[in-house]
């Protein structure tokens, strides 16, 4: 028995050494790309898919001949939905593995946790999820939607097309819903909505007992004015929320719910028949009719080996972000972060809805905004879209603290929060 054990240990040691040597030898020939998504814990439900899509994109790029004549190599780490661990893993990716760029994070708190690391070590982060804005960092590229690329157009749609006059802002209790709702409240009030016509409600993460809140919404909606719910409820809590809506008989025709965190992936766990007509605002739907999208879905199904898997908006954001990074590296002729940061502004790549997205000087991108209604097959049907592309706005124009701020990372300004009223760049970096 002992000899077997020793043999196994020896083998394991040899394997480790070989792997270490292999990685060392290969480092000269490959460009490393870090993937920083939780593969375990609460956020694994959303982030695992993004890890897979990044692996697929890297494989595709390698099939096309790699980048700058070198192969790309993915380095996957698992920050396990643990926010401080995100910072450690980011440091590990940059310092130990020497990656050229990192694609990752989902929650805002995980992004905030890694920001100082990317700044200190001067590396690149592509962040693919819609977020609350109020941030612009030199080393970060925000390929998801800013509030003006998702929340505000959705509210516009409800006001104009549905004639909504009374609003329930329901969200999970953390930074994204709170900031988004603050912006929306200011926006609605600037459009003449009275304070008593706005109901704000927050619930804990993973809230599962929605009886009281849904009953409250029902009561709030019976005041003789058209009412809608703007939901920033996060991930897991959505399923019981929609189930309760369906059971208590709230139909989309009476009180529509527009959600900013519910995509195809979240609907996969739901019977959508009672939800037909409830809305979501995104920059991409799997149902988008475009050749690029068909090709992407086909490639995804082939890669993952499952025809029933869906695609969603953050996946498209990674698709765009990755193409942008590839193009910027080619333009700069190097993966050096400073050169890429200079080269990437203005880079324009095709998105999956049949148009193009460009990287703006504030490190946000241009996107179309789509409003879709849930269908009985778990897909969204686009019912409205912006006529052109919307530029992501890092600093909201509707909040008093940020309305004078702009961000422009091009020389000579190179500032993430330039105050146009005072003409100064605040030294605090983000």
């Amino acid at each position, binding site marked *: 028995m002992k000899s077997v054990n020793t043999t196994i240990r020896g083998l394991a040691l040899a394997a480790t050494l070989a792997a270490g040597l292999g990685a060392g030898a290969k480092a000269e020939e490959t460009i490393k790309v870090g993937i920083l998504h939780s593969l375990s814990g609460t956020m694994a439900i959303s982030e695992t*898919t993004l890890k897979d899509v990044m692996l697929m994109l890297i494989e595709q790029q390698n099939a096309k001949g790699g980048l700058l004549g070198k192969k790309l190599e993915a380095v996957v780490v698992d920050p396990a939905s643990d926010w401080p661990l995100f910072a450690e893993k980011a440091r590990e990716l940059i310092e130990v593995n020497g990656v050229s760029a990192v694609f990752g994070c989902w929650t805002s708190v995980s992004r905030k946790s890694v920001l100082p690391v990317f700044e200190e070590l001067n590396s690149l982060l592509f962040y693919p999820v819609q977020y609350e804005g109020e941030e612009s960092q030199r080393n970060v590229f925000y390929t998801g939607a800013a509030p003006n690329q998702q929340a505000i157009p959705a509210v516009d749609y409800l006001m104009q097309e549905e004639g909504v006059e009374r609003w329930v802002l329901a969200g999970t209790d953390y930074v994204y819903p709170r900031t988004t709702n603050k912006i929306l409240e200011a926006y609605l009030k600037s459009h003449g909505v009275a304070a008593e016509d706005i109901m704000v409600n927050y619930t804990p993460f993973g809230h*599962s*007992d929605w*009886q009281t809140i849904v009953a409250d919404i029902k*009561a709030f909606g019976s005041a*003789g004015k058209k009412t809608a719910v703007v939901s920033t409820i996060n991930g897991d809590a*959505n399923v019981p929320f929609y189930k309760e809506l369906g*059971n208590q008989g709230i139909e989309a025709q009476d009180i529509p719910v527009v959600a900013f965190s519910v995509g195809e992936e979240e609907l996969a*766990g739901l019977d959508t028949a009672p939800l037909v007509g409830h809305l979501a605002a995104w920059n991409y739907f799997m149902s988008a009719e475009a050749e690029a999208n068909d090709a992407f879905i086909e490639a995804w199904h082939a890669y993952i080996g499952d025809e029933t898997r869906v695609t969603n908006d953050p996946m498209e954001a990674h698709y765009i972000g990755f193409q942008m990074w590839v193009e910027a590296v080619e333009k700069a002729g190097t993966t050096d972060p400073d050169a890429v940061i200079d080269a990437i502004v203005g880079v324009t790549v095709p998105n999956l809805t049949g148009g193009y997205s460009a990287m703006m000087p504030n490190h946000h991108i241009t996107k179309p905004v789509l409003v879709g209604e849930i269908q009985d097959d778990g897909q969204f049907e686009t019912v409205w879209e912006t006529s052109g592309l919307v530029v992501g706005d890092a600093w909201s124009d509707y909040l008093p603290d940020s309305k004078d701020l702009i961000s422009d990372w091009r020389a000579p300004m190179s500032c993430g929060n330039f105050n146009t009223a005072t003409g100064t760049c605040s030294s605090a970096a983000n």
Partner: protein
Amino acid sequence: MLLRFLLAAATIAVFIAAGSLLPARAASLETLLAELPEGGYDERAAVVTAIAGTGDDRAVALLEALAEGDLRQMKDGGQIVRVVREGRTHTAFDPLTGAEIGEISSRAASKIRVNNKLRRAIAAALGQLTLASPDRARRLAAAASVLKTGDPEQIEALDAALETETDPEVRTAFMDARAAAVLNAARPTAEKVAAIAQLAGRNDPQVLSIITAATTSDEPAVAAAAADALDRIEQARAAWGAVQNVWYGLSLGSVLMLAAIGLAISFGVMGVINMAHGELVMLGAYTTFAVQELIRSFAPGLFEVSLLIAAPLAFLVAGAVGVGIERGVCRYLHGRPLETLLATWGISLILQQTVRSIFGPTNQQVGNPDWMSGAFEIGQLTITWNRLWILLFALAVFALLLLILKRTPAGLQMRAVTQNRRMAEAMGIRSGWVDALTFGLGAGIAGLAGVALSQIDNVSPNLGQSYIVDSFMVVVFGGVGNLWGAFAGAFTLGIVNKFLEPYAGAVLAKVLVLVFIILFIQRRPRGLFALKGRAVES
């Protein structure tokens, strides 16, 4: 040649003029159908109204197909077809005659988009068309849709329908709908006041919003009557509010109890803090999912009873895993609570990741059978069927457990070991087996809880995590090792939570409940129902 050209041009001009100037009402169903895919939602809503206006018999089926999203336009040629999907095959039918056209590929036709606004227009149009339908359910639906729109033009049709209607429920629905329409029509004040009185008899949110709207009426008498009616409804609602909170509390309590009661057994008997308890709940939910998947592919007819099939299986699966945990891990850590806690926590992570590897990290869809969907109303109280069944299920599980513990030899042994392990051993009870049995029983109950939770929560690998803290809270509050303690603890916490929630919000309510428990434990460290006995004292 020139003449023919001119003639053609003139004909086209006439057609264009006819299309734009003549009211759409005059157009036939065929021409209106062709207009359906074009224009903005407003214009298309007008086409829908015009379709209803044709009085054509085929209009109802056409509009229903449109509302269902079954109408599609062929990309090639622009023909409009009704598509019936079965799995991956799409079969096209003529939307008017119903004749089969043949199979088409899913990308060959684009869907005629329908949004909420259009759906409302369709519902209103259908209401108008189906008021005289021989089908009782359709007439009720028609009345509901007229009530929603309050379209004054429907008064005549309603009057006509009322003359022939004999069914009392449908009559009331028609009267209500008529009252809603009257409020929007240019009718005498007295009639409007009567309409408000008619509506005030009902108490659903729809009516509430109609009456609220009437309080801003130009006619003072109508506004006063509406304000009066509103006051009365609000008072009734306030009274019902308390009942509603109690019901919500009971329902939350039943979920808490289901999740916690298994824990109460294993914690109570063996003093094992089983951190993997939540994952056993999750296994129960995944068993339900697996059973439903099998039923979907092999015996779709059994779907309605899928939960009844899943329940015993979930009990066995979770119970077997529980026995495995006890025999494989906990047994060796007997009397070392801290190590057990760590070990079971590790097991919980292993179970989570295993499920994640097998089923994937995404939510799985567990369907609700028809008898678990929807709601019914008692007065102002909306009771959803799934919550009611879960409450009954929780009570049944509790009763069964009491029966096992109090009336069976195994239960007697369990109680003996709980009260004094060494004395029980001295009496010849094999405490090792009792431990395994107890742990398995607790785990099996967790599996049953999983079946129930799969109906209200999402089935993902994280399902258990969200319940473990609440479960411990209930057990500690209720008194360790006491079933009645868990029972009282769960329902107390549920009701307290639901009474706090409307005032404090969901987040603060939870915080307050935790603070309350901390204070309570300071006063009574052993919980509501403390066990007495030598083992406890030592």
